[in-house]
């Protein structure tokens, strides 16, 4: 395990660290201030989380080899930081209360230098499964659309604002149980492929809830550390099912649209993508004298049952079996990732390790704020489930637990009541 959770002793002297290291902190970061009341309140609330739960933050074992980055509540990004100990980071976080904390998956000799001088050692293999890439129909119903023109929050995903007909819109994602279910399904598909095909030990795979609407998988297998970007892209391409040739199944289609067997040796048909596709299409393997003919006959027969051509059926099967990862995330070896245990400013949830993917519920397990009552002004009528309880909100003033307030304000669906500032 490359990432480890902080021990209490590491953080014991953090208060002293704060004073000792202050002169070394980057000056430009100090000048960023939140520009509105929501940000001011979130900053205060996030700081409280880090004060109480910094032990959740899983820092890399060799901190000094990683680049750190921070987003502040002015929404600006600051990169190329490096630290020598957990205490230094703790001091930094408490001092500046960033909205988001990032850490490189890569190891560098000089992590705080510009990219061309960092001297890359290697990088963990990371996969990102994001809800928006699943294109689920339910999202059209339960997500919201905010109009940049008139600021109206529209229920559902729209192409034009229902108020001003403006088309400059952005979608506010509110994942539902269905979204979480399908995200978990992708996670399990990915683990299965990594273990069965790549032979990766499942113990080296860590699944994290991203803190908003997705999951991150970190593979801490040392063999994969030196892989270059283009090599990681090939792994992504495999998982996404890109570039599959029909001939790989042991047949081709000639000009008369007839199937021609092309692999004499069919001993390896039951492995990898080939095996997965044939198994899914319930195509059996034959051995012996008429193996090729029986194989082809079987496909011809199935084509009539499916009432669709074999190539289309294979393409559809690949689409179903592929894992909906974001390939750019996996191949980008210089990306900085949200640090496990830190908060995601898009939701106020923490990026958190999921020991049991099946039972994981982000609205319970990634939510670390308390239940003290907070006054907010909701921009919409909505209802939301948190920690097993349904909260119905009307447009206007509402009293909700702090964790609901953080979520709705982070999502831009509510404003903090001024009396809370």
């Amino acid at each position, binding site marked *: 395990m490359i990432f480890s959770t902080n021990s209490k002793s590491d953080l014991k002297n953090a208060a002293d660290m704060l004073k000792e290291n202050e002169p070394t902190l980057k000056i430009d970061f100090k000048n960023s201030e939140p520009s509105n009341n929501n940000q001011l309140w979130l900053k205060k609330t996030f700081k409280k989380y880090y004060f109480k739960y910094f032990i959740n933050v899983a820092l890399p074992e060799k901190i000094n080899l990683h680049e750190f980055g921070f987003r502040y509540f002015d929404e600006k990004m600051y990169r190329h930081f490096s630290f020598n100990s957990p205490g230094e980071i703790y001091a930094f976080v408490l001092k500046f209360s960033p909205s988001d904390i990032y850490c490189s998956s890569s190891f560098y000799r000089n992590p705080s230098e510009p990219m061309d001088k960092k001297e890359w050692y290697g990088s963990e293999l990371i996969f990102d499964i994001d809800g928006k890439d699943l294109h689920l129909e339910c999202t059209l119903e339960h997500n919201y659309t905010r109009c940049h023109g008139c600021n109206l929050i529209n229920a559902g995903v729209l192409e034009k604002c229902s108020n001003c007909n403006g088309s400059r819109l952005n979608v506010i994602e509110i994942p539902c149980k269905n979204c979480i279910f399908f995200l978990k399904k992708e996670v399990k598909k990915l683990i299965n492929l990594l273990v069965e095909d790549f032979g990766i030990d499942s113990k080296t795979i860590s699944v994290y809830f991203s803190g908003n609407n997705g999951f991150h998988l970190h593979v801490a297998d040392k063999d994969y550390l030196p892989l270059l970007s283009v090599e990681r892209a090939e792994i992504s391409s495999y998982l996404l099912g890109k570039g599959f040739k029909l001939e790989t199944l042991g047949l081709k289609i000639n000009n008369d649209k007839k199937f021609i067997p092309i692999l004499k*040796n069919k001993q390896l048909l039951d492995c990898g993508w080939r095996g997965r596709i044939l198994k899914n299409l319930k195509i059996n393997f034959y051995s012996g004298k008429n193996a090729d003919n029986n194989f082809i006959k079987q496909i011809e027969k199935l084509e009539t049952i499916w009432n669709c051509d074999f190539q289309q059926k294979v393409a559809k099967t690949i689409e179903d079996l592929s894992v909906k990862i974001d390939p750019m995330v996996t191949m980008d070896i210089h990306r900085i990732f949200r640090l496990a245990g830190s908060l995601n400013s898009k939701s106020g949830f923490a990026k958190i390790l999921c020991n049991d993917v099946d039972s994981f519920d982000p609205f319970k397990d990634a939510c670390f704020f308390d239940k003290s009552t907070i006054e907010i002004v909701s921009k919409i009528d909505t209802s939301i489930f948190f920690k097993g309880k349904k909260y119905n909100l009307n447009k206007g003033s509402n009293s909700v637990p702090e964790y609901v307030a953080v979520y709705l304000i982070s999502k831009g669906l509510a404003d903090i009541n001024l009396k809370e500032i």
Partner: protein
Amino acid sequence: MSIKLGTNDLAKYPFLNEASTYVKETHFDLQEFDRTEMEFILNRSFNKIDNFIKNGETNYKLEKFEIEILTFLASLLILKSASIDIITKKFALFESMRFEKYLVEDLKNSFKDEKKRLILLKIFNEIFKIDIFCETIVNEFYKIRVIDYIHRSIVFHEEEWKLINRTVKNGFVYLNVNEIVRLFRNELSLLIIDKIKNMKLVTFPDKVLKKSQNLKIYWDSINKRSKVSDHVNKNRTTPPCIDHIYKVLNNGENLPHSARLLLATFLLFSEKNIEEIIEIFKKLPDYNEQITRYQLEHLSGKKGSSKKYFVPSCEKIKLQNLCHETFVCKGIINPIQLLGKRRDEIEKEEGKG
């Protein structure tokens, strides 16, 4: 268990450490190449290089292992003394293709012959620093670790080499003997180039110098023809992707199929005739006039389906890792858009921006 290579193995694979050890143990001095009895070896080496570079021909017939080892050594010396990168690379490519043929034969036989198998596994381990495994439950397949496979296969652009079109199981990729050897061709070629580059000699035997002089004379004679980049109108902007291909060609390096296609379609679109384009492709280490001519005629629509192939789009070029974008590429979607523009115009535009 210590595995000893047979003399036949040394004849086939004279680049192995054991072949070098053999030379050392016989106390052979390189200056001995000046002896009259060695003329046979030097002529054999020179003819081999000559055949590679002029005719693209390879002779697979093996002599006694002592002769093969010394021929290989003499070839390296001639090439080192000549110091012509393109010829060195061409030699390395053809020689690796020759070794590839022996490796395929040996690997095929290795499934029934355990001793042979162990020798080959040792060879792979020594040269390529990789373990290959014989899969006992599946006939006539070897397997290598997925990472070792990806590391090598990404240089191939054909879809059949993509991991998704391979048999992948439990962290291994299964390959038949032809595939496994093909996968390592580039490395074998680089190994030979390294051997030549790393030779440290103060003086060369006179007869080696004579042979290398002949090689230089030949090379100068064909190099009187213009350089690849001279085919380009200096006033016009050459797309950076094409410029990069020219650089690779001038270094005598091989090009993937996709780069050849890009260059050929670009030159055809630039109204170069097939003879002019063939002249450019002659720099490729594996150049074959017949194949090049056929393919150019095919691309230009003179052969086959009479369909004229268009220059690939920037998007496709990017996907094929052939894009070397600079400011001149701003706003274009196909490299041919730069053909009509003069470089100074672009620089002027850039200055305004």
